């Protein structure tokens, strides 16, 4: 019984560590990439890898933390719900933002190779 709890605790701590590393890589990428549409790739790492995975880890750590009392199940549940919510909401928000920025011509595609959406709108 104790072995299972230790495995869950270790898994949670490893997930939080992976999330922190993803977050660091995403923030470096957000500063290095050339334009808005390329920076969205780094933002995906920062939201899915840097928010969903560590929240699941927080939930797993809370599940075996007896010092929280009965409320450990509350921390577990809210963490998992927040992780699922971010997993649905973050790609939706990023797509809708890219669509609006392209249609309003707010973010120029500066090092441009090909822009099929612009060609389709010109026709």
């Amino acid at each position, binding site marked *: 019984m*104790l072995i299972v709890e*230790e495995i869950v*605790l270790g898994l949670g*701590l490893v997930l*939080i*560590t992976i999330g*922190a*590393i993803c*977050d*660091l890589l*995403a*923030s*470096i990428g*957000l*500063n290095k990439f050339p334009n*808005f549409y390329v*920076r*969205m790739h780094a*933002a995906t790492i*920062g*939201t899915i890898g*840097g*928010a969903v995975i*560590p*929240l699941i880890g*927080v939930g797993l*750590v*809370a599940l*075996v*933390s*007896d*010092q*929280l*009392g009965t*409320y*450990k199940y*509350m*921390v577990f549940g*809210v*963490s998992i*719900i*927040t992780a699922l*919510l*971010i997993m649905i*909401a*973050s790609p*939706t*928000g*990023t797509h*809708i*933002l*890219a*669509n*609006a*920025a392209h*249609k*309003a011509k*707010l*973010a*120029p595609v500066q090092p441009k190779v090909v822009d099929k959406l612009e060609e389709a709108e010109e026709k």
Partner: protein
Amino acid sequence: MNTQWILDIYVPIISIVFIIAVTLYIIRVLKGPTVPDMVLSIDCLGYDLAVFIGLLSLYYGTSFLIIGSLMIALWAFIFDLYISKYFLKKELGE
């Protein structure tokens, strides 16, 4: 089992990484050449803050801080929606 002694060591170490990431996000928010860049960075910042509140909830051993995490995740999504609508229609609606 009691995991408070592990969290007392682990959370301050991992917080350093999160604080470095937040600092780099804030640099992009202040520097961002266009408005969508700033919105994207604030989005990442909001989801990052949700995780950080979860870690603080474990560190202080209280369960009521974790409720704020759900609200911040929803706030970042609503922020995206309203900014996108303002870009397209130049008004926020009733």
